[in-house]
């Protein structure tokens, strides 16, 4: 009789251990995914500000637009604490630049304009996607870390709780997003 109880207890402990290690492994994988997403987001943002800066100094745009864009891109790239704000400002500056009437027609034919605009558009897409996937990973990680067993056994260790990255990254003005505008396009 006691032997059966002992076996049951041992089995329970083993099962619990397996469960805990499965949980911990899952959390670990989530943290790894989060880390990768963060790198991708960072790279996308840096690329976007670099291309914006390149466009600003290319001579394709008029000097006032160039200065506007250069300063926004520079602020975004050098911001550390207020990064979300600075990146949102860069988006707004881009929107103002590309929102000029007949913008595409006016720059068409200028040397290097097509390539730079195409590159900027693709960089902006990357930011949009990378941010979506990063926030997705944050949500999943936060959810996993809130489990009682994870909290109780401190499975998350000392890793800081991840935070969402909230910026304005839509190149379409608010209110004008249609069903096809999930990925931002510079011009309609």
């Amino acid at each position, binding site marked *: 009789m006691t032997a059966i109880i002992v076996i049951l207890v041992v089995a329970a402990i083993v099962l619990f251990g397996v469960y805990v290690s499965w949980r911990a492994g899952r959390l670990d994988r989530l943290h790894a995914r989060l880390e990768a997403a963060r790198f991708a987001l960072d790279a996308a943002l840096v690329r976007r500000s670099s291309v914006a*800066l390149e466009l*600003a*100094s290319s001579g394709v745009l*008029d*000097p*006032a*637009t*160039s*200065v*506007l864009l*250069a*300063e*926004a*891109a*520079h*602020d975004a790239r050098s911001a550390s604490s207020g990064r979300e704000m600075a990146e949102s*400002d860069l988006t*707004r*500056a881009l929107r*103002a*630049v590309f*929102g*000029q*009437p*007949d*913008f595409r027609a*006016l*720059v068409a034919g200028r040397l290097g304009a097509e390539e730079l605009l195409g590159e900027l558009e693709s960089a902006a897409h990357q930011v949009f996607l990378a941010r979506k996937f990063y926030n997705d990973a944050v949500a999943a990680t936060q959810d996993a870390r809130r489990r009682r067993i994870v909290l109780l056994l401190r499975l998350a260790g000392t890793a800081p709780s991840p935070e969402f990255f909230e910026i304005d990254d839509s190149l379409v003005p608010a209110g004008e997003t249609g069903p096809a505008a999930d990925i931002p396009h510079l011009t309609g």
Partner: protein
Amino acid sequence: MRIGLVCPYDWEVPGGVREHVKGLAEALIELGHDVSVIAPADDDAELPSYVVPAGRAVPVPYNGSVARLAFGFLSASRVRRWLKDGAFDVLHVHEPAAPSLSLLACWAADGPIVATMHAAIPRSRALHAAQPILASALEKISGRIAVAEAARSTLVEHLGGDAVLIPNGVHVRGYEKPDPLPGFPGTGGVLGFLGRMDEPRKGLHVLLAAFALLAPERPGLRLLIAGRGDAAEALQQVPALYRARVVLLGQVSDADRVRMLHSVTVLCAPNTGGESFGMVLVEAMAAGAPIVASDLDAFRQVLLGGEAGALFETGNPAALAAAAAGLLDDPGRRASLAAAASIAVREFDWSVVARDVLRVYEAVAPAAGRVVVAT
């Protein structure tokens, strides 16, 4: 002289630089000169006859806040056409480093160009990213003016070179007529605040805290606030008991601005920093309103070290309360401060300031020929 002035900020929204350009243009016209101003504005906006619209301003993040600017190819071609039609003897651009019409005008013009710097930009937000783009336009400027020491040091730090100091002007006569708002100033005393409520550096929070200190002992004391911002947020900083004694006017017209200054017993300027000049003080001086102001360098200069207005320790509500109480209780001191201020303010009258600006034009223009469109 045929003078072309360029305002980089939206003509339809009140602001320091726009007021300056307007005042200068009108003073120069009064002195018999031929003046044209180009500024961002809608084509169908109601504008003074001397203003040429360059198209609607676009709100963009610039220098830590949102500015209403005009840029892009269409603005650039409007500026070119204006330069061509104007055939100016001198081109005077304002805030040429801002990404707007002034920069476009520098780019598009050759000949005698004068520029006035208004803002004090902190070193950390330096223009270095845009430096190469700016340099070729700013190099063309042959005479540089700064409205205050802080604007001059910004210029020297960022771009090198030097500038002549010529202060901001006011139309003193326009402020003199006593026509207070209905029900003001009354008998219990009125503290006044003129400026944006939602900009922390304007220091409204310091004044509200000081008012909370003064209100219990002075049952008749009121607070009159004129400026853009969230009224509910401001009121929340005042104990509920005294809220009824705070009068919020919101954004006011130029005429009501003057009436507001005549409605207060003491005008408070509790700014905490970032002021390069202190236009609000000069306006209050012109209106004859006794002043209590933060002890900032720029303010101290305008108030002649305290002779033309009382100074208090910047950011300290208790010090403001004490200084304001001192003035509220002493009509003789209020009168003597106002009298000193009304003499000191003459130096800032547009008739004086515009003549100084003309001297700069005369120093630059003959040697450089006429303003032409660059090829």
